[in-house]
């Protein structure tokens, strides 16, 4: 399959790489098929919609921020990142993590029932 992404231009991939979200991420429930793309030069992943290739969510693995983050069996927690040209304004949504299982190729987003994790958590410090 081929899609035209905003960030990486046209990319070709095998169908077995598709990660299914049923439902899709919050606010994007109708989007169910994604590619998880990792550029090797930094910490970010990109969850790129296949149905609407112009839509992508920057992600970061939450394990690099918090060792004690709530686990979901066999799933890896990611936070949706709001990027900013001013790096100190880059935030991660820890309140509503995206859990992905890269073996079963499934994912879901959850809203945590705790106030410990903010919706806008500053990712970097000087």
């Amino acid at each position, binding site marked *: 399959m081929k899609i035209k992404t905003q960030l990486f231009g046209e990319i070709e991939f095998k169908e077995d790489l598709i990660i299914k979200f049923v*439902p899709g991420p919050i606010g994007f429930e109708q989007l169910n098929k994604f590619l998880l793309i990792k550029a090797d030069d930094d910490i970010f992943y990109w969850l790129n919609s296949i149905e609407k290739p112009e839509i*992508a969510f920057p992600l970061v693995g939450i394990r690099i921020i918090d060792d004690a983050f709530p686990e979901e069996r066999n799933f890896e927690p990611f936070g949706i990142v709001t990027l900013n040209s001013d790096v100190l304004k880059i935030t991660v949504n820890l309140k509503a993590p995206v859990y992905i299982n890269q073996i079963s190729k499934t994912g879901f987003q959850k809203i945590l029932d705790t106030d410990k994790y903010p919706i806008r958590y500053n990712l970097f410090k000087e």
Partner: protein
Amino acid sequence: MLILTRKIEEEIKIGSDVTIKVLSISEGQVKLGISAPGNVAIFRSEIYEKVKMVTIEASESCTEKPKDLSKLKIRKISDEDERS
């Protein structure tokens, strides 16, 4: 909008497998018990709306990626614990 009046311990069914029960009522607050299958997502509306807003912002921020991140340190949750 359908409007129903319920007393404490009374329930409302939405479809065949979602049940909402009024558990208690006190000054300006209602406590509800919700039974639903695991695949039914239940959210506090205002938090859902906030998460949705941030997710939309994130999807629109893709092109804002700064070039050089090598000098920056990841802010860890445990950093906060040390400070407090």
